[in-house]
Protein backbone atom coordinates (compact mmCIF):
# COMPACT_ATOMS: atom_id res chain seq x y z
CA UNK A 1 0.00 0.00 0.00
CA UNK A 2 1.33 3.41 -0.83
CA UNK A 3 1.89 5.82 2.05
CA UNK A 4 1.05 8.97 0.15
CA UNK A 5 -1.28 9.70 -2.80
CA UNK A 6 -0.85 12.20 -5.62
CA UNK A 7 -3.75 14.21 -4.20
CA UNK A 8 -1.97 14.38 -0.83
CA UNK A 9 1.22 15.49 -2.57
CA UNK A 10 -0.70 18.31 -4.27
CA UNK A 11 -2.23 19.31 -0.93
CA UNK A 12 1.22 19.37 0.74
CA UNK A 13 2.63 21.39 -2.21
CA UNK A 14 -0.09 23.97 -1.61
CA UNK A 15 0.79 24.12 2.10
CA UNK A 16 4.46 24.55 1.14
CA UNK A 17 3.53 27.21 -1.43
CA UNK A 18 5.06 25.35 -4.36
CA UNK A 19 3.32 25.50 -7.76
CA UNK A 20 4.40 21.98 -8.75
CA UNK A 21 3.55 20.61 -12.18
CA UNK A 22 1.51 17.46 -12.81
CA UNK A 23 4.73 15.65 -13.75
CA UNK A 24 6.46 16.75 -10.54
CA UNK A 25 3.44 15.64 -8.52
CA UNK A 26 3.75 12.14 -9.97
CA UNK A 27 7.52 11.92 -9.44
CA UNK A 28 7.27 13.32 -5.92
CA UNK A 29 4.52 10.84 -5.04
CA UNK A 30 6.82 7.94 -5.90
CA UNK A 31 9.91 9.44 -4.26
CA UNK A 32 8.21 10.58 -1.07
CA UNK A 33 6.43 7.23 -0.80
CA UNK A 34 9.78 5.47 -0.91
CA UNK A 35 11.36 7.79 1.66
CA UNK A 36 8.36 7.63 4.01
CA UNK A 37 8.15 3.84 3.72
CA UNK A 38 11.82 3.63 4.66
CA UNK A 39 11.32 6.07 7.54
CA UNK A 40 8.56 3.92 8.99
CA UNK A 41 11.30 1.61 10.28
CA UNK A 42 11.23 4.02 13.25
CA UNK A 43 8.01 2.27 14.33
CA UNK A 44 10.19 -0.69 15.37
CA UNK A 45 11.66 1.46 18.14
CA UNK A 46 9.89 1.55 21.50
CA UNK A 47 9.70 5.23 22.45
CA UNK A 48 6.84 5.06 24.97
CA UNK A 49 8.86 6.52 27.82
CA UNK A 50 11.33 8.61 25.81
CA UNK A 51 11.35 12.41 25.81
CA UNK A 52 11.78 14.11 22.42
CA UNK A 53 15.03 16.02 21.73
CA UNK A 54 14.70 19.34 19.95
CA UNK A 55 18.20 20.68 20.72
CA UNK A 56 21.08 18.68 22.15
CA UNK A 57 22.30 21.28 24.63
CA UNK A 58 20.40 21.94 27.84
CA UNK A 59 19.80 25.60 27.07
CA UNK A 60 16.36 26.94 27.99
CA UNK A 61 14.66 30.34 27.75
CA UNK A 62 17.60 32.51 26.78
CA UNK A 63 16.69 36.06 27.80
CA UNK A 64 18.24 39.43 27.11
CA UNK A 65 17.60 42.95 28.38
CA UNK A 66 14.65 44.57 26.63
CA UNK A 67 16.55 47.54 25.24
CA UNK A 68 15.37 49.41 22.14
CA UNK A 69 17.98 49.59 19.36
CA UNK A 70 17.73 51.38 16.04
CA UNK A 71 16.22 49.30 13.22
CA UNK A 72 17.71 48.88 9.77
CA UNK A 73 17.95 52.00 7.58
CA UNK A 74 15.27 52.08 4.90
CA UNK A 75 17.73 51.86 2.00
CA UNK A 76 19.28 48.68 3.42
CA UNK A 77 15.86 47.09 3.86
CA UNK A 78 15.00 47.87 0.25
CA UNK A 79 18.42 46.99 -1.15
CA UNK A 80 17.48 43.40 -2.07
CA UNK A 81 13.72 43.85 -2.49
CA UNK A 82 12.61 42.76 -5.98
CA UNK A 83 10.22 45.72 -6.26
CA UNK A 84 9.70 48.82 -4.16
CA UNK A 85 7.98 52.19 -4.32
CA UNK A 86 7.98 55.25 -2.03
CA UNK A 87 10.21 53.50 0.52
CA UNK A 88 7.91 50.49 0.75
CA UNK A 89 8.24 46.93 -0.55
CA UNK A 90 5.71 46.40 -3.35
CA UNK A 91 3.91 43.09 -3.91
CA UNK A 92 1.21 41.96 -6.39
CA UNK A 93 -2.46 42.48 -5.38
CA UNK A 94 -3.51 40.68 -2.20
CA UNK A 95 -7.26 41.31 -2.53
CA UNK A 96 -8.71 41.40 -6.02
Amino acid at each position, binding site marked *: MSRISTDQVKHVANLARLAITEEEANTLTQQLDKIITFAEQLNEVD*TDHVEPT*SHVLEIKNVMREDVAKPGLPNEEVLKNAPEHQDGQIK*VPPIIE
Partner: protein
Amino acid sequence: MSLFDQKVSDLHELLHKKEITVSDLVETSYKRISEVEGKVQAFLTLDEENARNKAKALDERIGQADEKGLLFGMPIGIKDNIVTKNLRTTCASKILENFDPIYDATVMGKLHQAETVTIGKLNMDEFAMGSSTENSGFKDTRNPWNLDRVPGGSSGGSAAAVAAGEVLFSLGSDTGGSIRQPASFCGVVGMKPTYGLVSRFGLVAFASSLDQIGPVTRTVEDNAYLLKAIAGHDEMDSTSANVAVPDYVSALSGDIKGLKIAVPKEYLGEGVKEEVKQSVLDALKVLEKLGASWEEVSLPHSKYALSTYYLLSSSEASANLSRFDGVRYGYRSPDAQNLLDMYKMTREQGFGDEVKRRIMLGTFALSSGYYDAYYKKAQKVRTLIKKDFEDIFQKYDVIIGPTTPTPAFKIGENLADPMTMYVNDILTIPVNLAGVPGISVPCGFSEGLPLGLQIIGKHFDESLVYKVAHAFEQATDYHKQKPQL
Protein backbone atom coordinates in the same frame (compact mmCIF):
# COMPACT_ATOMS: atom_id res chain seq x y z
CA MET B 1 55.85 23.95 -4.40
CA SER B 2 53.13 26.32 -3.31
CA LEU B 3 53.22 28.58 -0.26
CA PHE B 4 50.05 26.74 0.77
CA ASP B 5 52.10 23.56 1.29
CA GLN B 6 53.18 25.20 4.54
CA LYS B 7 51.30 25.51 7.78
CA VAL B 8 49.74 28.74 9.03
CA SER B 9 52.35 29.02 11.79
CA ASP B 10 55.22 28.72 9.25
CA LEU B 11 53.64 31.25 6.89
CA HIS B 12 53.16 33.62 9.82
CA GLU B 13 56.85 33.37 10.58
CA LEU B 14 57.78 34.00 6.93
CA LEU B 15 55.58 37.12 6.97
CA HIS B 16 57.39 38.38 10.04
CA LYS B 17 60.81 37.71 8.60
CA LYS B 18 59.62 39.76 5.59
CA GLU B 19 60.40 36.82 3.33
CA ILE B 20 56.87 36.94 1.98
CA THR B 21 54.03 39.47 1.98
CA VAL B 22 50.29 39.14 2.42
CA SER B 23 50.03 40.11 -1.24
CA ASP B 24 52.18 37.08 -2.10
CA LEU B 25 49.72 34.85 -0.25
CA VAL B 26 46.71 36.41 -1.96
CA GLU B 27 48.37 36.19 -5.38
CA THR B 28 49.20 32.54 -4.69
CA SER B 29 45.44 32.00 -4.42
CA TYR B 30 44.43 33.89 -7.55
CA LYS B 31 47.28 32.47 -9.62
CA ARG B 32 46.31 28.93 -8.69
CA ILE B 33 42.65 29.75 -9.34
CA SER B 34 43.53 31.00 -12.82
CA GLU B 35 45.40 27.73 -13.45
CA VAL B 36 43.00 25.10 -12.13
CA GLU B 37 39.58 26.64 -11.51
CA GLY B 38 38.46 25.75 -15.04
CA LYS B 39 38.83 22.11 -14.02
CA VAL B 40 37.81 22.19 -10.35
CA GLN B 41 35.02 24.83 -10.42
CA ALA B 42 35.01 25.33 -6.66
CA PHE B 43 34.05 29.03 -6.61
CA LEU B 44 30.77 30.83 -7.23
CA THR B 45 32.09 34.36 -6.64
CA LEU B 46 35.61 35.82 -6.44
CA ASP B 47 36.37 38.99 -4.51
CA GLU B 48 39.66 39.89 -6.20
CA GLU B 49 39.70 43.65 -5.96
CA ASN B 50 38.80 43.80 -2.27
CA ALA B 51 41.19 40.96 -1.43
CA ARG B 52 44.10 42.66 -3.20
CA ASN B 53 43.36 46.00 -1.55
CA LYS B 54 43.12 44.39 1.85
CA ALA B 55 46.40 42.55 1.28
CA LYS B 56 48.15 45.84 0.47
CA ALA B 57 46.69 47.49 3.59
CA LEU B 58 47.76 44.55 5.77
CA ASP B 59 51.27 44.52 4.29
CA GLU B 60 51.79 48.06 5.61
CA ARG B 61 51.05 46.84 9.12
CA ILE B 62 53.20 43.70 9.38
CA GLY B 63 55.20 43.80 12.59
CA GLN B 64 53.43 46.89 13.92
CA ALA B 65 51.75 47.02 17.30
CA ASP B 66 48.20 46.62 15.98
CA GLU B 67 49.08 43.56 13.90
CA LYS B 68 48.10 40.57 15.91
CA GLY B 69 47.34 36.92 15.63
CA LEU B 70 48.51 34.00 13.58
CA LEU B 71 45.77 34.23 10.97
CA PHE B 72 46.79 37.77 9.95
CA GLY B 73 46.82 37.93 6.15
CA MET B 74 45.87 34.29 5.53
CA PRO B 75 43.72 33.72 2.41
CA ILE B 76 40.41 31.98 3.10
CA GLY B 77 37.44 30.74 1.07
CA ILE B 78 33.92 30.88 2.49
CA LYS B 79 31.04 28.51 1.80
CA ASP B 80 28.30 30.42 0.05
CA ASN B 81 25.67 29.91 2.76
CA ILE B 82 27.60 32.16 5.17
CA VAL B 83 26.47 35.73 4.63
CA THR B 84 29.16 38.23 3.69
CA LYS B 85 28.33 41.94 3.72
CA ASN B 86 28.37 43.43 0.22
CA LEU B 87 29.64 40.13 -1.25
CA ARG B 88 27.05 38.10 -3.15
CA THR B 89 25.74 35.13 -1.14
CA THR B 90 23.66 32.62 -3.09
CA CYS B 91 23.50 29.32 -1.16
CA ALA B 92 24.05 27.98 -4.72
CA SER B 93 20.36 28.67 -5.34
CA LYS B 94 18.72 30.53 -8.20
CA ILE B 95 16.36 32.01 -5.61
CA LEU B 96 19.30 33.99 -4.15
CA GLU B 97 21.25 34.49 -7.38
CA ASN B 98 21.62 38.24 -6.87
CA PHE B 99 21.45 38.45 -3.07
CA ASP B 100 23.80 41.09 -1.67
CA PRO B 101 23.81 40.79 2.14
CA ILE B 102 23.53 43.88 4.32
CA TYR B 103 25.36 42.28 7.24
CA ASP B 104 28.17 39.87 8.06
CA ALA B 105 27.73 36.49 9.76
CA THR B 106 29.28 36.41 13.23
CA VAL B 107 32.06 34.12 11.94
CA MET B 108 32.90 36.73 9.29
CA GLY B 109 33.15 39.40 12.00
CA LYS B 110 35.56 37.12 13.87
CA LEU B 111 37.62 36.52 10.71
CA HIS B 112 37.78 40.27 10.11
CA GLN B 113 39.13 40.64 13.65
CA ALA B 114 41.69 37.93 12.94
CA GLU B 115 42.42 39.78 9.67
CA THR B 116 42.19 36.92 7.23
CA VAL B 117 41.63 37.81 3.57
CA THR B 118 38.47 36.49 1.88
CA ILE B 119 39.30 35.16 -1.59
CA GLY B 120 35.76 34.28 -2.64
CA LYS B 121 32.60 32.26 -2.04
CA LEU B 122 32.53 28.51 -2.53
CA ASN B 123 30.14 26.20 -4.33
CA MET B 124 27.85 23.83 -2.44
CA ASP B 125 24.70 21.79 -2.77
CA GLU B 126 21.76 24.19 -2.91
CA PHE B 127 20.96 25.29 0.68
CA ALA B 128 23.47 22.62 1.83
CA MET B 129 21.10 19.80 0.84
CA GLY B 130 23.17 17.06 -0.75
CA SER B 131 26.29 14.94 -0.59
CA SER B 132 27.99 15.67 -3.91
CA THR B 133 27.63 19.40 -4.74
CA GLU B 134 25.68 18.24 -7.81
CA ASN B 135 22.60 19.99 -6.38
CA SER B 136 24.23 23.38 -6.90
CA GLY B 137 21.98 25.64 -8.97
CA PHE B 138 25.03 26.90 -10.87
CA LYS B 139 27.81 24.37 -11.50
CA ASP B 140 29.29 20.97 -10.66
CA THR B 141 32.47 21.14 -8.61
CA ARG B 142 34.93 18.34 -9.39
CA ASN B 143 37.16 16.27 -7.15
CA PRO B 144 40.79 17.48 -7.59
CA TRP B 145 42.01 13.87 -7.26
CA ASN B 146 39.89 12.70 -10.19
CA LEU B 147 37.85 15.16 -12.21
CA ASP B 148 35.21 12.53 -13.04
CA ARG B 149 34.40 12.17 -9.35
CA VAL B 150 32.32 14.35 -7.04
CA PRO B 151 34.09 16.36 -4.32
CA GLY B 152 31.40 15.34 -1.82
CA GLY B 153 28.96 17.74 -0.29
CA SER B 154 27.40 19.84 0.67
CA SER B 155 30.65 21.79 1.34
CA GLY B 156 32.18 20.43 -1.90
CA GLY B 157 33.64 23.77 -2.95
CA SER B 158 35.20 24.29 0.49
CA ALA B 159 37.00 20.93 0.38
CA ALA B 160 37.95 20.99 -3.32
CA ALA B 161 39.41 24.51 -3.14
CA VAL B 162 41.67 23.54 -0.23
CA ALA B 163 42.72 20.23 -1.83
CA ALA B 164 43.47 22.02 -5.13
CA GLY B 165 45.58 24.67 -3.37
CA GLU B 166 43.28 27.52 -4.41
CA VAL B 167 43.03 28.75 -0.84
CA LEU B 168 45.00 28.01 2.30
CA PHE B 169 41.83 27.00 4.16
CA SER B 170 38.08 27.50 4.14
CA LEU B 171 34.88 27.47 6.15
CA GLY B 172 32.12 24.96 5.51
CA SER B 173 28.94 23.97 7.29
CA ASP B 174 27.88 20.53 8.48
CA THR B 175 24.28 19.44 9.10
CA GLY B 176 24.61 15.69 8.45
CA GLY B 177 28.24 15.35 7.35
CA SER B 178 28.64 18.27 4.97
CA ILE B 179 32.13 19.19 6.19
CA ARG B 180 33.51 15.74 7.06
CA GLN B 181 32.31 13.84 3.98
CA PRO B 182 33.80 16.26 1.38
CA ALA B 183 36.97 16.56 3.50
CA SER B 184 37.23 12.76 3.35
CA PHE B 185 36.59 12.65 -0.41
CA CYS B 186 39.14 15.40 -1.11
CA GLY B 187 41.88 14.27 1.30
CA VAL B 188 41.79 17.27 3.65
CA VAL B 189 40.97 17.88 7.32
CA GLY B 190 37.37 18.86 8.17
CA MET B 191 35.94 19.52 11.63
CA LYS B 192 32.29 19.66 12.69
CA PRO B 193 32.43 21.25 16.13
CA THR B 194 30.04 20.57 19.02
CA TYR B 195 26.58 21.97 18.30
CA GLY B 196 26.52 25.51 19.69
CA LEU B 197 30.29 26.08 19.80
CA VAL B 198 30.30 28.31 16.71
CA SER B 199 27.61 30.96 16.24
CA ARG B 200 25.09 30.24 13.50
CA PHE B 201 24.15 33.92 13.17
CA GLY B 202 24.43 34.65 9.46
CA LEU B 203 24.60 30.99 8.42
CA VAL B 204 21.57 30.63 6.16
CA ALA B 205 19.56 28.08 8.13
CA PHE B 206 18.93 24.57 6.78
CA ALA B 207 18.17 22.51 9.93
CA SER B 208 18.72 24.75 12.91
CA SER B 209 19.08 22.01 15.54
CA LEU B 210 21.88 20.35 13.53
CA ASP B 211 23.75 23.05 11.55
CA GLN B 212 27.30 23.97 12.58
CA ILE B 213 30.01 25.99 10.84
CA GLY B 214 33.51 24.48 10.88
CA PRO B 215 37.00 24.70 9.33
CA VAL B 216 38.43 22.82 6.34
CA THR B 217 42.24 22.79 6.25
CA ARG B 218 45.25 20.82 5.08
CA THR B 219 46.56 20.07 8.56
CA VAL B 220 45.09 19.42 12.00
CA GLU B 221 47.09 22.28 13.48
CA ASP B 222 45.71 24.81 10.99
CA ASN B 223 42.24 23.47 11.71
CA ALA B 224 42.70 24.04 15.43
CA TYR B 225 43.86 27.63 14.84
CA LEU B 226 40.91 28.41 12.60
CA LEU B 227 38.33 26.90 14.97
CA LYS B 228 39.77 28.90 17.86
CA ALA B 229 39.27 32.07 15.80
CA ILE B 230 35.60 31.44 14.95
CA ALA B 231 34.29 29.74 18.12
CA GLY B 232 32.57 31.35 21.08
CA HIS B 233 29.29 32.50 22.56
CA ASP B 234 27.24 35.00 20.58
CA GLU B 235 24.22 36.85 21.90
CA MET B 236 22.87 36.98 18.35
CA ASP B 237 22.49 33.16 18.39
CA SER B 238 20.46 32.06 21.40
CA THR B 239 21.47 28.42 20.78
CA SER B 240 25.17 29.22 20.99
CA ALA B 241 26.82 27.79 24.10
CA ASN B 242 28.25 30.00 26.80
CA VAL B 243 31.48 28.06 27.30
CA ALA B 244 35.12 29.13 27.35
CA VAL B 245 37.02 28.40 24.13
CA PRO B 246 40.27 26.61 24.99
CA ASP B 247 43.56 26.95 23.15
CA TYR B 248 43.20 23.86 20.97
CA VAL B 249 46.73 24.04 19.58
CA SER B 250 48.29 23.60 23.01
CA ALA B 251 46.59 20.18 23.17
CA LEU B 252 48.55 18.93 20.14
CA SER B 253 51.24 17.17 22.16
CA GLY B 254 51.27 13.91 20.23
CA ASP B 255 50.87 12.07 23.54
CA ILE B 256 47.88 9.72 23.43
CA LYS B 257 49.20 7.07 25.84
CA GLY B 258 46.33 5.39 27.66
CA LEU B 259 43.69 6.72 25.26
CA LYS B 260 40.60 4.51 25.19
CA ILE B 261 39.04 4.22 21.74
CA ALA B 262 35.60 2.79 20.96
CA VAL B 263 35.02 1.36 17.49
CA PRO B 264 31.30 0.86 16.75
CA LYS B 265 30.69 -2.39 14.88
CA GLU B 266 27.88 -0.60 13.01
CA TYR B 267 30.50 1.70 11.42
CA LEU B 268 32.39 -1.23 9.91
CA GLY B 269 29.32 -3.17 8.84
CA GLU B 270 27.21 -3.68 5.76
CA GLY B 271 27.69 -1.20 2.92
CA VAL B 272 31.15 -0.12 4.04
CA LYS B 273 33.73 -0.93 1.37
CA GLU B 274 36.44 -3.43 2.27
CA GLU B 275 39.32 -1.02 1.60
CA VAL B 276 37.61 1.59 3.78
CA LYS B 277 37.38 -0.90 6.66
CA GLN B 278 41.02 -1.89 6.15
CA SER B 279 42.18 1.72 6.24
CA VAL B 280 40.44 2.17 9.61
CA LEU B 281 41.94 -1.04 11.03
CA ASP B 282 45.38 0.13 9.83
CA ALA B 283 44.79 3.52 11.47
CA LEU B 284 43.90 1.79 14.74
CA LYS B 285 47.23 -0.07 14.58
CA VAL B 286 49.01 3.26 14.23
CA LEU B 287 47.16 4.62 17.25
CA GLU B 288 47.92 1.45 19.24
CA LYS B 289 51.62 1.94 18.56
CA LEU B 290 51.26 5.40 20.05
CA GLY B 291 49.91 3.90 23.25
CA ALA B 292 46.14 3.89 22.67
CA SER B 293 43.88 0.86 23.03
CA TRP B 294 40.62 0.08 21.26
CA GLU B 295 37.59 -2.13 21.68
CA GLU B 296 34.61 -2.91 19.53
CA VAL B 297 31.37 -1.42 20.85
CA SER B 298 27.81 -0.99 19.65
CA LEU B 299 25.74 2.11 18.94
CA PRO B 300 22.52 0.11 18.66
CA HIS B 301 20.32 2.87 17.26
CA SER B 302 22.71 3.75 14.40
CA LYS B 303 20.50 2.12 11.81
CA TYR B 304 17.68 4.53 12.65
CA ALA B 305 19.83 7.65 12.26
CA LEU B 306 19.19 8.11 8.54
CA SER B 307 15.38 8.10 8.87
CA THR B 308 15.52 10.26 11.96
CA TYR B 309 17.79 12.74 10.23
CA TYR B 310 15.75 13.08 7.05
CA LEU B 311 12.50 13.59 8.95
CA LEU B 312 13.95 16.16 11.35
CA SER B 313 16.22 18.05 8.96
CA SER B 314 13.55 18.25 6.26
CA SER B 315 10.93 19.40 8.77
CA GLU B 316 13.22 22.14 10.03
CA ALA B 317 14.16 23.06 6.45
CA SER B 318 10.52 23.38 5.40
CA ALA B 319 10.04 25.98 8.14
CA ASN B 320 13.38 27.75 7.60
CA LEU B 321 12.97 28.04 3.83
CA SER B 322 9.51 29.60 4.12
CA ARG B 323 11.33 32.95 4.26
CA PHE B 324 12.10 32.68 0.55
CA ASP B 325 8.83 34.08 -0.72
CA GLY B 326 9.89 36.67 -3.29
CA VAL B 327 8.90 39.61 -1.07
CA ARG B 328 11.95 41.07 0.70
CA TYR B 329 14.94 39.61 -1.16
CA GLY B 330 15.91 37.12 -3.81
CA TYR B 331 14.20 36.02 -6.97
CA ARG B 332 10.56 36.94 -7.65
CA SER B 333 8.59 35.25 -10.42
CA PRO B 334 7.53 37.85 -12.99
CA ASP B 335 4.55 35.72 -14.04
CA ALA B 336 2.20 36.05 -11.06
CA GLN B 337 -0.96 38.17 -11.02
CA ASN B 338 -1.67 37.94 -7.29
CA LEU B 339 0.26 37.46 -4.06
CA LEU B 340 -0.49 33.76 -3.50
CA ASP B 341 0.58 32.87 -7.03
CA MET B 342 3.67 35.03 -6.57
CA TYR B 343 4.73 32.95 -3.55
CA LYS B 344 4.05 29.66 -5.30
CA MET B 345 5.61 30.49 -8.66
CA THR B 346 8.65 32.17 -7.10
CA ARG B 347 9.38 29.08 -4.98
CA GLU B 348 8.60 26.65 -7.79
CA GLN B 349 10.93 28.45 -10.20
CA GLY B 350 13.60 29.45 -7.67
CA PHE B 351 14.25 26.16 -5.86
CA GLY B 352 15.93 23.08 -7.36
CA ASP B 353 14.50 19.54 -7.24
CA GLU B 354 16.26 18.31 -4.09
CA VAL B 355 15.29 21.41 -2.11
CA LYS B 356 11.65 21.05 -3.21
CA ARG B 357 11.70 17.35 -2.31
CA ARG B 358 12.90 18.10 1.21
CA ILE B 359 10.46 20.97 1.71
CA MET B 360 7.70 18.57 0.64
CA LEU B 361 8.89 15.80 2.99
CA GLY B 362 9.20 18.24 5.87
CA THR B 363 5.83 19.90 5.25
CA PHE B 364 4.24 16.45 5.13
CA ALA B 365 5.96 15.30 8.35
CA LEU B 366 4.78 18.44 10.15
CA SER B 367 1.25 18.48 8.72
CA SER B 368 -1.86 17.86 10.76
CA GLY B 369 -2.39 14.16 11.41
CA TYR B 370 1.22 13.17 10.66
CA TYR B 371 3.17 15.27 13.15
CA ASP B 372 3.14 12.68 15.97
CA ALA B 373 3.79 9.71 13.70
CA TYR B 374 6.80 11.21 11.91
CA TYR B 375 8.28 14.39 13.39
CA LYS B 376 7.72 13.69 17.08
CA LYS B 377 8.63 10.02 16.68
CA ALA B 378 11.92 11.06 15.07
CA GLN B 379 12.63 13.50 17.90
CA LYS B 380 12.21 10.65 20.39
CA VAL B 381 14.49 8.32 18.45
CA ARG B 382 17.00 11.19 18.37
CA THR B 383 17.05 11.03 22.17
CA LEU B 384 17.98 7.34 21.98
CA ILE B 385 20.70 7.96 19.39
CA LYS B 386 22.15 10.68 21.61
CA LYS B 387 22.02 8.31 24.59
CA ASP B 388 23.98 5.66 22.63
CA PHE B 389 26.85 8.16 22.43
CA GLU B 390 26.56 9.17 26.10
CA ASP B 391 26.72 5.51 27.15
CA ILE B 392 29.89 4.88 25.11
CA PHE B 393 31.55 8.04 26.41
CA GLN B 394 31.09 6.79 29.99
CA LYS B 395 33.86 4.30 29.27
CA TYR B 396 35.79 5.59 26.28
CA ASP B 397 37.55 8.83 25.33
CA VAL B 398 36.82 8.92 21.60
CA ILE B 399 34.88 6.97 18.99
CA ILE B 400 36.64 6.10 15.73
CA GLY B 401 35.35 4.83 12.40
CA PRO B 402 35.39 5.71 8.72
CA THR B 403 33.98 9.06 7.60
CA THR B 404 32.24 7.59 4.56
CA PRO B 405 31.33 4.05 3.43
CA THR B 406 33.13 4.49 0.07
CA PRO B 407 35.59 6.87 -1.58
CA ALA B 408 34.27 9.63 -3.90
CA PHE B 409 31.71 8.32 -6.40
CA LYS B 410 31.37 9.31 -10.05
CA ILE B 411 29.57 12.48 -11.07
CA GLY B 412 25.98 11.52 -11.98
CA GLU B 413 26.24 8.05 -10.42
CA ASN B 414 23.81 8.61 -7.52
CA LEU B 415 21.50 11.20 -9.01
CA ALA B 416 18.66 8.94 -10.16
CA ASP B 417 17.53 7.75 -6.75
CA PRO B 418 17.55 10.15 -3.76
CA MET B 419 17.84 7.24 -1.31
CA THR B 420 21.18 5.96 -2.69
CA MET B 421 22.58 9.47 -2.29
CA TYR B 422 21.25 9.73 1.28
CA VAL B 423 22.98 6.47 2.34
CA ASN B 424 26.33 8.20 1.85
CA ASP B 425 25.87 10.02 5.11
CA ILE B 426 25.10 7.07 7.42
CA LEU B 427 28.41 7.39 9.31
CA THR B 428 28.32 11.15 9.79
CA ILE B 429 24.62 11.82 10.52
CA PRO B 430 24.54 10.26 14.04
CA VAL B 431 27.22 12.76 15.14
CA ASN B 432 24.99 15.72 14.23
CA LEU B 433 21.96 14.13 15.90
CA ALA B 434 23.98 13.71 19.11
CA GLY B 435 25.52 17.19 18.75
CA VAL B 436 29.04 15.93 19.46
CA PRO B 437 32.21 17.04 17.61
CA GLY B 438 33.69 14.97 14.78
CA ILE B 439 36.71 15.40 12.53
CA SER B 440 37.77 13.71 9.30
CA VAL B 441 41.51 13.27 8.67
CA PRO B 442 43.15 11.57 5.66
CA CYS B 443 43.86 7.87 6.37
CA GLY B 444 44.58 6.19 3.05
CA PHE B 445 43.70 5.80 -0.60
CA SER B 446 41.48 3.52 -2.65
CA GLU B 447 41.84 3.57 -6.45
CA GLY B 448 43.83 6.80 -6.12
CA LEU B 449 41.02 8.45 -4.15
CA PRO B 450 41.49 9.68 -0.56
CA LEU B 451 39.83 8.04 2.45
CA GLY B 452 38.99 9.71 5.75
CA LEU B 453 39.22 8.61 9.37
CA GLN B 454 36.44 9.99 11.58
CA ILE B 455 37.27 10.79 15.20
CA ILE B 456 34.32 11.66 17.42
CA GLY B 457 34.51 13.18 20.91
CA LYS B 458 32.33 14.23 23.82
CA HIS B 459 30.47 17.55 23.80
CA PHE B 460 33.02 20.41 23.83
CA ASP B 461 35.98 17.98 23.87
CA GLU B 462 37.43 19.32 20.60
CA SER B 463 40.85 19.51 22.27
CA LEU B 464 41.04 15.74 22.63
CA VAL B 465 39.63 15.15 19.13
CA TYR B 466 42.35 17.41 17.74
CA LYS B 467 45.02 15.76 19.88
CA VAL B 468 44.19 12.29 18.53
CA ALA B 469 43.82 13.55 14.95
CA HIS B 470 47.16 15.34 15.17
CA ALA B 471 48.97 12.34 16.67
CA PHE B 472 47.65 10.18 13.82
CA GLU B 473 48.54 12.77 11.20
CA GLN B 474 52.10 13.13 12.50
CA ALA B 475 52.58 9.35 12.45
CA THR B 476 51.42 9.04 8.81
CA ASP B 477 52.05 10.92 5.58
CA TYR B 478 48.67 10.76 3.83
CA HIS B 479 48.16 14.49 4.39
CA LYS B 480 51.38 15.26 2.55
CA GLN B 481 50.13 13.80 -0.72
CA LYS B 482 48.68 16.25 -3.20
CA PRO B 483 46.42 15.76 -6.21
CA GLN B 484 48.04 16.26 -9.63
CA LEU B 485 46.03 18.83 -11.55
